[in-house]
């Protein structure tokens, strides 16, 4: 940017008391969306995955209904392969907020022992998460599910609505999505239809991090750099979280200072080498980084529109 514009930069944003910052607006918008969705729902629930976006969502939910308790349970569609630290964090967080926590395991996956090591990340994710989510929505008859997806995550998400209508078969059909004007969301459903609601649609990764920083929202410590036992596979750093990870002959975990940019099932989530052990340093690293966030997810590498396909199948 040129010098002149940099000059105006220092003069321009003279902040008057009557102007909100972008984060204040994003927060107010998300709270508005949550209250609308709850008001038009019969059985709402919030998907909770212990990640940073989930943590922001939970904070927003607490704020939206304060001093009442958020009027919905947290739903974790588990895969059995999350990091142990994530499970501990989940249970502690739900207890702290006095929220009901529903953990669902797809019984078919338990029976067939579906896991990422033998079955690959695509099948593992599809069976545990995509199918598991449908099961729990049907079983509990949830009509509104809050999710923490953001439009900046992937190209096809840029067009996703805040209120996303799913057919009774959980299908997402681009043609059936409703126009969203002003702050007016139409949460009405036909029989069997459900709505996925994304209150932080307009947040970027930076917004999420900055909000966590400002609000001092607790996070799973996996986001912070620490010495952890690591093996390197095809260039991906895998943290050995428990003894279910079968080590290849000759593979010896070594201690390396790593952290995660995104949290998933530990055998398919790559760590990055980093010394960032505070939020500002994480943000700094992210801003100076050269690759986009989702690269750490092995699950996303199968083609350009894989996310879109998953969405049509009913995945988040």
């Amino acid at each position, binding site marked *: *940017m040129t010098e002149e514009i940099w000059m105006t930069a220092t003069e321009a944003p003279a902040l008057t008391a009557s102007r*909100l910052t972008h984060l204040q607006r994003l927060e107010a918008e998300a709270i508005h969306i949550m209250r609308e969705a709850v*008001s038009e729902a019969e059985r709402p629930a919030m998907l909770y995955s212990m990640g940073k976006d989930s943590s922001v969502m939970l904070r927003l939910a607490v704020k939206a209904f*304060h*001093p009442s308790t958020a009027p919905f349970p947290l739903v974790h569609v588990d895969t059995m392969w999350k990091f142990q630290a994530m499970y501990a964090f989940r249970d502690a967080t739900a207890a702290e907020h006095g929220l009901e926590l529903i953990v669902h395991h797809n019984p078919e996956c338990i029976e067939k022992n579906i896991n990422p090591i033998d079955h690959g990340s695509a099948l593992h994710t599809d069976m545990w998460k995509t199918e598991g989510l449908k099961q729990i929505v049907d079983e509990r008859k949830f009509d509104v599910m809050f999710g923490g997806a953001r439009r900046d995550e992937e190209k096809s998400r840029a067009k996703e609505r805040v209120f996303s209508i799913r057919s009774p078969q959980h299908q997402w059909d681009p043609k059936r999505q409703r126009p969203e004007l002003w702050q007016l969301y139409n949460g009405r459903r*036909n029989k069997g239809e459900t709505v996925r609601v994304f209150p932080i649609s307009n947040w970027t990764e930076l917004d999420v991090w900055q909000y966590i920083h400002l609000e001092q929202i607790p996070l799973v410590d996996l986001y912070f750099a620490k010495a952890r036992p690591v093996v390197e596979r095809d260039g991906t750093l895998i943290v050995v979280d428990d003894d279910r990870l079968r080590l290849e002959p000759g593979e010896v975990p070594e201690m390396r200072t790593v952290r995660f940019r995104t949290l998933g099932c530990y055998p398919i989530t790559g760590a990055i080498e980093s010394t960032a052990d505070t939020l500002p340093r994480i943000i700094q690293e992210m801003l100076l980084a050269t690759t986009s966030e989702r*690269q750490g997810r092995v699950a996303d590498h199968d083609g350009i529109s894989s996310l879109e396909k998953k969405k049509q199948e009913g995945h988040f």
Partner: protein
Amino acid sequence: MAGSGSTTTQALIAENIDDYLTQHQYKSLLRFITCGSVDDGKSTLIGRLLYETHLVFEDHLAALEVDSAKVGTQGGDLDFALLLDGLSAEREQGITIDVAYRFFTTEHRKFIVADTPGHEQYTRNMVTGASTADVAIILVDARKGVLTQTRRHSYLVSLLGIKHVVVAINKMDLTDYSHEVFSSIQEEYTDFAARIGLEHVTFIPLSALRGDNIVEASANTPWYHGPTLLGFLETVPVDDDLAEQSFRMPVQWVNRPNLDFRGFSGRIVGGSIKPGDSIRVLPAGTTSTVDRIVTMDGDLDEAIAGQSVTITLTDEIDASRGDLICGSDDPAEVADQFEAHIVWMHEDAMLPGRPYLVKIGTRTVGATISQPKYRVDINTLDHLAATTLELNEIGVCNISLDRPIPFDAYDTNRDTGGFIVIDKLTNVTVGAGLLHFALRRSHNIHWQDVKVDKAARAVLNNHEPAVIWFTGLSGSGKSTIADIVESKLHAQGVRTYLLDGDNVRHGLNRDLGFTDADRVENIRRIAEVAALMVDAGLIVLVSFISPFRAERRLARDAVEVGEFIEVYVDTPIDVAEQRDPKGLYAKARRGELANFTGIDSPYEPPESAEVRVDTSTMTAEQAADEVLRALQDRAEKI
């Protein structure tokens, strides 16, 4: 990081992240929309903005290089437009067909871009994107100048009340950065802008492709002294007047954690509020005083437009979701009939008189829309006569709600004057509207100057008309059930009429016998009479054997979808014959009656009757209740 963005920022991030975060924390938010015809360079422009503000990561950039070589339109150069394509089907067609939202950040602001297509049939998308925008960028191809599409986009921008407009004259590189070209487009557009009431218009000569005047003032346009595009976007005032307006907060949710706390949660859409301010709750008109402004981060001394808060009042007054809390000095108006612009957004055309739902603020009410007073040709701005509004059409209509609501004119406040129209049957959002003013007679229940039509009669009668068509064998119980249904409806104040063999055969159809041709004519007349009575607003009960599907179909088609309720009185022939109240079966058996249904003439049972009752297993009373329930369901659906 990729991109040619500010090295100053990069240095700040690297050297002092805490300072950077502090700076970033106080950024404001600006939402804008880009409008242009296909190929004007919209995608290139947005891609360029993302690139310049270094939102393009290296992995994306690598993909972009590959894609540019494969499908790009720029030879070997980077084709920024490829950064934006979303859904794969659209990607294959080479057009974007929906509203997509993009994000980028500079030193001063965070930006949300609504990217909407310029394609003819997508008024819907543009209106959607414009509804939340603070600024509109209208792209003009320098070689083509102001086109029909440019006018259309500008009209929509003015209709949706966007205060700041940038006319980005793009592809200046292809006109040798000619000042004359720029000036003549500016002149032509200025005239037009004045006609449609656009106030703040800024013209910027650009090349989205080459980057001229996007971030840095271009050496190629020394004659231009205005802001660069980004410079403009970073400094234009946002929502400057919203907080100065009258206080408005729609109640979203009543917050009652326990008996000692009763708060009203909502997002402030106008003005500001402090504890001690007096307020008025509309439509009831109750007044009270703000006690506290509660948030999880502590009570506030003041809250302003844009914030989501919970307000408690000093009095125990009744307010619920859908109410509007206003400053007591300047409350909103309350009315139930309005003139409004309606933008139709669905393939099924608007049906004047049909009951829809309208959501405004946090309130959803029943509504009917009159025939358009006129439709706007968005290309010429001419007013055209119209009986309905099709997808992507815009018209001015009267709208009548089933109860009074608080509102402001859309021009004053988008959030208390903008509404969506929802179809009651499918729950889909089918239209959007902008309230202008309440009709003067609004406090009467009826429209006085609309044509007296079926909808008007339905309003007067307080119910929708319908045909309840009872079909079944002779002696099945049709007339008995129809009688009970009619008495019950009558007792509810519903206007009814019963058509049966007796009152029709002896008068209107006295000239008809029982030949095939006469039977058809008999049904045709009954169907026509029923349709007239429906138009007159009645619930018509028709009790006829009507054995043939084709004739019942004819009767169904004589009225509108949803107005016909077919009741199949499904009584086994032996039961009916046993009852034989008029001795007709006996006669037919004796051969004294020819073509008697069930004996020597077939009865074709309905395949998808709305109601089926069997009088051999239920009483006539129960059967009548079944029919009334169906009528009730239908009333709830439409």
